[in-house]
Structure formats: structure tokens, C-alpha cells
């Protein structure tokens, strides 16, 4: 039967099948030339699909009757705050998708934590706070869009963000136009607060912009001073990842190091997605440096340090707060490697530990990453200033925005990253920096001090 079927079907004019209506498509080599097989194929497909439906139905039955209904009015058991005046919104602009989402999600979660804590503590009288996160997709044009969206809501009191300095450049003017406060946890480009000519004449371009992280102009030189004056390194090679943070850090480091009499013998760039650094290592080895300064973050710095040592280049690697992370050591950071970070060592800071514990307790699926603590401090600064602005009986309105900006400017508290306060440019006044060194698979503080430019 099978053989004859085959013969006969050969003469049956091709029937347009359900999904292949095209006359221009040829039979070759899609599927089989045998209709029997094709039918069988479809049956099998139907069977699979039926099985899938059954599984799905089963899942539905299992999930039946589940709800997360909360009793209205209650906020999870603790004493309810007075939120009769409505909801005020803390905006977040950070990448939530794509390759920078790890950092962006950390920023969002940490700000969320701050908002939740503020709600529990009834920080802003009469109002409930809520977080609204916008994805800037790590590009300037979408960032501007997100900023416009937040700025068109009168209940948005301020914005935490952004991650990328280039996105901040497009967000700043939009928020400034509506006098909405912006506190960045991560922008390190000095020109954002001090104008394009920050080196010669400082001029604050936007009254609404603040940041809690240090600029490259502080961290780079502080690292250089330690490296040259304390550690006695005279021939230093620099590597950057080509991004704003890394390039800026290396530039500022180089300036100070040369001023102190050290020679920067090589300046190389690695790709932001690279994992193989053999070429760069061989090249800087040619210049025989006695230390390497890396501008960038730990995902590259860790393997870079390891590959350096594997290739026999046994000199310490130093970086900024972007590499000050336990993951750096996990990824290959070796004993003797150095990092600078803002503030006094975290162990001596109970507020830092409190943040880490609270974050762990809140069970966010993502880690708080490099800028989580800064984001937490930014949100707290915004909320704290808001509480001061509103007092006990204030009502939110456009007229409060100027007060809010003033109060952020004069805000002072101890946060997860140390002292949080702002100078006349909106920069963090926390000029206290600490040098850490890896020893015994752990970051150990070696020196704390201030950099006075």
C-alpha cells in the first residue's frame, strides 16, 4: 500500500497547505514529498500541541484560587501612616534592559528600598511615596523621553538617575526646565556639575542637578597620590574601557601622577565587551611598568588582573570604586591589587551595614551592584529634603520645588556611602576617600584621607 500510495500521490496536484500558500516557493527541500508523511507529521504536531494544552490546563488548576489579596487600608501590619493627601512620586531613570541592566536594576531596587523604608517610617507627613522607574535603554534620546514623561507628572518630586553620563546630558535640560530635582548615583563626568570648562572656570550649568558619587576629578588624583607617593611606583601603565567613567578616571589619574613625577608609560584601551586581554598585557609589558591603573568596572578588571599575573606580569592593578566589589576578587583580582572608594571604610560605618542587611532582607532578585548604595543615598537625600520642605502640614505643589532644591543643597546625613551633602555645584562634599587593597581574598582598607585639589 505504501508504495502505491506514493505512486499515486505523485500525480495529485499540489494542495496549498495551510501555511504555504506561495506559488513562488518550491517544494524543495521543505518537508517531505510524501503526503502520507506530511499528514502523519501534522498528527504528531497536533498531539504535541494537545499535550501542551493539557500541561497548561494542569498548571492553571494547580494555581487555582491563589491570590495575594491584602486587607485594604493595612500596610502589612505596621502602624499605618497618614497618607490622606495622596501619593508623591520618586522617579528613577536607569537602564532596565540590555547590557547595562545589572547596574540599572541595582539602582532601581535600592531606590525602591529607600522609598519603602520612608513609607514605613512615615517620613513625609500626609503623603505616601511611590517609585516610578523609566527605562532609558542606556541611550540619550530615550532618556530624554523618560525625563519628559516624569516631568509631565506634577506629583513627581525628583528623579534618581541616570547611570550613563551621556544620558544625564540629555536628561538635565528637560528636568531643569520644570525645576525638578535630579540626584545621580553614578555620573562621574565633572562637566555635568561644573560646566564644560571645569578645569579652568567652574560654572554650574543646571541648578537642579546633584550627585552623591565623587567625580573622576577627585578619585583619579587620590589614587595617583597613593600610588606614586605612598607605594613609590614610578612607571605606571594605564588602561581604560573607553567609557565615560573609565576614560575620565584615567585622564585625571594621569594628570596627578605626572605632576608627582611618575611616568605614565602606556595608555591602552580594552573593548567594553572583551574577555581576552592578552594583546593589551603584552603591549604594556613592553613598557615595563611597575603598576597598572585601570579605569573601568570589575567585570573587566577582575579577569584582566588574573590574566596579567598568568602571563607573568606581576604588578599590582589599581582602579576606582568601579572595581571595589567582592566580585572583582571572585573574577580573578589578586592579592596586592588596589582600589579607591568613597567615604570611610564600610566596616566602620553602621549605616552601610544597615543598607546591605536591609537589601538582603528585601529579597530583590538582582544584586545592588556598583551603584546601589549611592542610589539608596540619593533617594534618601531626596526624601529627607522633601520631608524638610513639607514640614508637618505642607501641601505639595509647584511652588515647593524651589524650596526642595534649596533643601537638597543643604541636606546632610550619614548614608550607606558615608557623609551625604552637596557643595555649591551640586557635587558630593564627601571628599573622604579610602584606598583598599586585596589581601587574603578580601578588600582591606589601607589608607583613608581627603584629596585637596
Amino acid at each position, binding site marked *: 500500500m505504501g508504495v502505491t500510495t506514493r505512486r499515486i500521490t505523485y500525480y495529485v496536484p499540489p494542495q496549498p497547505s495551510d501555511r504555504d500558500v*506561495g506559488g*513562488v516557493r518550491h517544494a524543495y527541500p521543505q518537508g517531505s514529498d510524501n503526503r502520507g508523511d506530511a499528514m502523519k507529521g501534522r498528527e504528531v504536531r497536533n498531539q504535541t500541541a494537545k499535550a501542551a494544552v493539557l500541561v497548561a490546563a494542569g498548571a492553571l488548576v494547580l494555581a487555582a484560587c491563589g491570590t495575594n*489579596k491584602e486587607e485594604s487600608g493595612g500596610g502589612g501590619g505596621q502602624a499605618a501612616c497618614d497618607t490622606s493627601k495622596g501619593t508623591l512620586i520618586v522617579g528613577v531613570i536607569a537602564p532596565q534592559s540590555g547590557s547595562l541592566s545589572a547596574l540599572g536594576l541595582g539602582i532601581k531596587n535600592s531606590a525602591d528600598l529607600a522609598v519603602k523604608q520612608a513609607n514605613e517610617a512615615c517620613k513625609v507627613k500626609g503623603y505616601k511615596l511611590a517609585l516610578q522607574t523609566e527605562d532609558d535603554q542606556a541611550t540619550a*534620546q530615550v532618556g530624554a523621553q523618560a525625563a519628559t514623561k516624569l516631568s509631565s507628572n506634577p506629583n513627581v518630586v525628583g528623579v534618581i538617575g541616570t547611570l550613563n553620563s*551621556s544620558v544625564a546630558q540629555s536628561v538635565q535640560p528637560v528636568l531643569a526646565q520644570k525645576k525638578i530635582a535630579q540626584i545621580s548615583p553614578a555620573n562621574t563626568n565633572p562637566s555635568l556639575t561644573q560646566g*564644560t570648562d571645569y578645569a579652568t572656570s567652574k560654572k554650574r550649568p543646571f541648578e537642579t542637578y546633584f550627585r552623591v558619587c565623587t567625580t573622576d576629578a577627585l578619585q583619579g588624583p587620590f589614587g595617583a597620590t597613593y600610588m606614586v607617593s605612598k607605594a613609590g611606583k614610578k612607571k605606571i601603565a594605564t588602561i581604560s574601557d573607553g*567609557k565615560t567613567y*573609565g576614560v575620565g578616571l584615567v585622564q585625571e589619574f594621569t594628570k596627578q601622577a605626572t605632576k608627582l613625577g611618575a611616568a605614565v608609560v602606556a595608555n591602552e584601551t580594552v573593548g567594553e565587551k572583551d574577555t581576552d586581554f592578552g594583546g593589551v598585557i603584552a603591549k604594556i609589558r613592553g613598557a615595563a611598568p611597575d603598576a597598572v591603573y585601570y579605569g573601568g568596572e570589575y567585570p573587566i578588571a577582575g579577569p584582566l588582573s588574573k590574566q596579567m599575573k598568568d602571563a607573568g606580569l606581576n604588578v599590582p592593578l589599581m582602579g576606582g570604586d568601579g572595581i571595589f566589589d567582592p566580585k572583582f576578587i571572585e573574577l580573578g583580582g589578586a592579592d596586592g591589587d588596589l582600589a579607591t572608594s568613597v567615604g570611610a571604610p564600610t566596616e566602620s560605618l553602621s549605616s552601610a551595614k544597615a543598607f546591605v542587611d536591609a537589601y538582603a532582607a528585601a529579597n530583590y532578585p538582582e544584586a545592588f551592584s556598583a551603584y546601589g548604595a549611592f542610589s539608596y543615598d540619593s533617594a534618601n537625600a531626596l526624601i529627607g529634603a522633601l520631608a524638610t520642605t513639607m514640614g508637618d502640614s505642607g501641601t505639595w505643589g509647584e511652588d515647593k520645588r524651589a524650596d526642595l532644591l534649596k533643601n537638597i543643597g543643604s541636606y546632610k546625613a550619614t548614608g550607606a556611602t558615608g557623609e551625604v551633602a552637596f557643595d555649591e555645584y551640586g557635587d558630593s562634599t564627601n571628599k573622604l576617600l579610602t584606598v583598599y587593597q586585596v589581601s587574603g581574598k578580601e578588600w582591606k582598607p589601607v589608607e583613608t584621607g581627603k584629596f585637596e585639589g
Partner: protein
Amino acid sequence: MSPLEFTTVVVAFAVYVWLVSQAGKQATDRTVFARPAAVAGGVLTIVAALLPWATFVLNDGPYPAKSTLQFFDAPFELGGFRAHLALFGIVALVFTFVRIPGRNRAIRGLGWGVGVISLVNVLFIAINGGGIGAVTAAEGSTAFAGFLGLIAGVLLVAAGSAGGIEPIPQWPTKLPTAVAFLVLLLSFAGLLWVVAETLTSGGLGGPSSPYAGPEFLSYLGFLVGLLGALYGIGLLRWISTLSEQHRVFSMIVLLLCAVALPFTDAGTDYWMTVAVNIGVYAATAIGLNIVVGLAGLLDIGYVAFLGIGAFVAAQLSGAASAKLAGPIGEVPFIIVLVICAVVAGIFGAIVGSPTLRVRGDYLAIVTLAFGEIFRKSAQENIGGLTGGANAVPNIPPISLFDQPFNEPISAGGVVLPSGVLYYFLIVLLIAVVMLVFANLKDSRIGRAWMAIREDEDAARAMGIKTGKAKILAFLVGATLAGMAGAVFAHKTSTVAYDSFQFLESVTLLAAVVLGGMGTIPGAVLGASLLFVLPEKLREFNEYRLMMFGLALVLIMRFRPQGLVPDRVRRAEFAGETATGESIEQVQEKAVVEHEQELAEAETGPGPAAPAGGGEGRARP
């Protein structure tokens, strides 16, 4: 939304779509079932609209459209998606009993709409409510309306298919000009209304409207049903035929509609910003459409031209870090626009020059290489022109007649949102670009491009100077992208290398492919979707790129001709003629007719002829 919830949504969606299409397939031409199923479906839809959807008030606040409403509480307070459902149910019933041509197709469309609306709302109530209990029964209250809606959707689609899908009815197209103009005016006004409604549906999201995502998706479901029904009864085809007949008038009305958008509900500074971004990308996509859609040269590094335009504009602007601004002084925007276009065009010709020797996939790789070279050079601050990692910040807004473009303006007592001038500028730019594109497409060079796309060797044999034509395609395309870049630079106020990554090129290509290669509305629609969807569906932020990748695969698999297909493309990709018939069928029909003619010629006109033709086909 957690990965698990996301997976649930995707799987549920796939399973339901599969179920409905299976129902339609199984029911095909079983005429007996048509009417009962349609009646049952219509009634169920109305009942679903009236019964409660959620068993309790969700934690984030009441679900929209009073979903916990009981029929007897307030039967006339239907709003939002429930009003849509009620409307669909009534229309379906009307179609069942009134002999309207094309009604089965329309009922099928309505069924899809009902199904999608129900599915979206069921899924989101269940997810936001923490489980199936939220849409079935919890703590003594019940809500089964969602599942009724799902069933109604299946029934309606089955009913439509069972009734027999008829060819789309042709409406009279030889109308007096005045009537045709009136119809067109009304339909474009309707289009404007739909666009404004789509943009504003669900609100802006955030804590003030926590269900923006589902409301928007549900609204899309409504559009699916509405457009399906209008398409089914032949109205959409009629309008498009009329607008083809009165092209110039349609263009003018469309332009007026675009200008009128800021006066609608969507006229906020936020939507103006989004619209300008869409416009920039749409203009670039139209440029890309010349290269890919018309000339068939795949370019996957195209965003570089947008970048070149943007960097040139940034350098010519009064920005503090702009190198060229000092010696030249401030340049009027019109001249900047021209310079950007020229510079980008030159680069376009350079990038296009390998087309003289490289073809097909290899060319795609060459363009990718050029795109990456551009990005890397911009990152390394080549020649000090791009600002490198620091970008070129603080580019001042365009200013014309002492009116900066980023400020709100008031015209005749109406205050228009800030950014509206940019919007008008980009609308104007797109109008010009469209004009260029439309004229080029039908010109000698346009036909040469299409000939090259279909078969380069044959084109050359016909005397087309293929090399020149191909470079010209790149040049013209890049020119358009360069102009878009000039607007981009001023509107975004900063130009950084990371705005021009490979993924942006893929996005542009996706806009062209999604909308339909070789058509203008396609490129605009594609760019709009790729910008509006992420804005609206914040719930899916984390999964944006994943869905984007998946969408590319699915489009190529199921609708390679895009949403608004070009006629020629439709023939190539889907095997359909311009009127939506399968080419195979048309060819068969032609063969049959030809055989009939032959038979007639042999035997003379008579009743034997059709039988002869039929026999010829049925020969084993």
C-alpha cells in the same frame, strides 16, 4: 514582572492564539454551525461585558473599567474594555442576522478582538491579583466573565470561518470627487482619533495609573477587532482605493492630521518628545527603505549615517565643546541641515562604493563593518570631533525668530506643549522625505533600483547602470538620515557615541521590515511601534530586547511582507497579488480560463467548455 510571570503570559498567549486558529480551521465551511455559534458568541460576549471580572479590588488599586462591577449594580456604566466587548457582541449579533456582504470575515475579526481583549484582562488580573483566584472565585465572590470572554472569542472566530470566508466585497469607487473627499476627510480624522486614543489609552503608567500596560494591550485588542471588522466588510480597502485615486488630496489631509495631533489629548510635551524621536527614526528608516526596500541592498550599519548627521550638527551648534562653532560662529539651522545632509551623503557614497564589487550577504557584512568602524572611531574621539566618551553635551535648542524650540508656545489662545515646534519641524521633514521617496520610487531611477533588487544581472542587461544606481541609493538614503541626525542632535541636546550602537541599526532595520519594505507608511508605522510599545508596556521592560528578537523571527516566518506590504513585495514574500488573492489561485484561474478559451475555439461556445476545462485540471 518576574521571569515566571512573563513566561506564563507568553505561553498563555501562544496557546490561546493556537486554540483560536485551530477552532477557525476546524470549523471552516461547516455552514450549519455558523449561525448558532455566532449567536452564542455574541451573547456570551455581551454577558461577559456585564459580569464581574475580578473577585476583589487588587492591591495596586481597583482594576480599570470597574471590573468588580455586577450587572445589577450599574448596567449602563460600562467603560473601557467592557464597553469594547459589549460593542463587539452587539455588532456580531447584528452581522449574524443582517445580510451584510463580507460579514463572516468581519465576525472572525471581531472574534479575534474579543479573544485578545479577554485574554489580556484575564492574564493581568490574575497576575496582579496573585493567582487564578482573582479571576475565578475567592473568598465567596466569583468572577467568571473573563473565561466567558475567552470562549466567546473562540466561538466567534469559529462562526466566522464556518460561515465561509467570502472575498472582500468591492465598494463603488467611481464617486463624485466631493463625496470622495468627504469620505477621505472623515477617515483620516478617524485615523487621527485612533492614534490619539492609542497613545493616551491607559495613561502614562507609574503609580498613578498602575494598569497602563494591560489597558493599552486591551485597547490594541479592540483595534484588532475593529480593523478586522472594517477590513472584512471592505471599508478599509475602499478607503485605500479612494486615497490612491486622490493622492495629492490624501497627502494634504494626512499632513493636516499630523499637524493637528498636538491639539488632541496626545498633545503633551511627553508625547511630543516621543513623536519627535519616532520622527527622527522614521525619517532614517525611510532612508534605509530606499537602500533595503527599493534597491534590495541590506545595510546593517545604517545608524552611522544618523550619527554622522548628529555629530556634524553638534559641531556646528553653539555648544561649548563644539570645535567648529568658534571660527564659523552660529550657523542657521537650515544651513546646518543642508551641511549634515551633504556630509552624510558623501559618507553614504563611500560606504556604498563596495557595492560595485560586493553583493548580497557580503554587502550586509561590509555595512556592518562600516557601522562598527564609525562607532569605535566616535568612541575614540577621532580627530577630536565626537567628544569621545564625554560626548558633545549642552547643544542649544534650535531657535527661529527668537523662539527657542524647546519652549511651549501659545497660538491664538491655545497653549501648545513644549517640543511642539520640534514636532512640526520633524513632520515637515518627513513630508519632504516622503515626497522625495514617492517621486523617486516612480521615477526612472526608482524603477532601476527595483530592477536591481529583483535581478541585478538582468537589470544590467537591460541597460541600467547598476553601479551608479546602487551608489545613488546609498547616497540618497544617507542624506535623509543625515538630516534626521541634525534634528536629533538639537532635540536630544547631546550626541554620544553610544546612541549609535549596532543594536540601533538592527532596530532601524526592524522598523523597515516590520512596517513593510519599500513603503513609506510601513517605515513610519514600524518606527512608531518600536518606540511606542516599550513606552506603553513598562511591565515588559526587562524583556524588551528578548521580545524584539523573537518578533523579528516571527515576522520573517509568518508575515515577511510586513504590516503594510508593498505590492511587489507582497508578491515576492507571501505569494499574494495586490488584492490579497493567492498568486497560485490566480494562476490556476488563468490557466482554467485559457483552457476554456482553447476549448471554446475548438468546439465553439457551448456548455461543454467549462466541463472541458474542469476535466483538464482534474486529470489524475
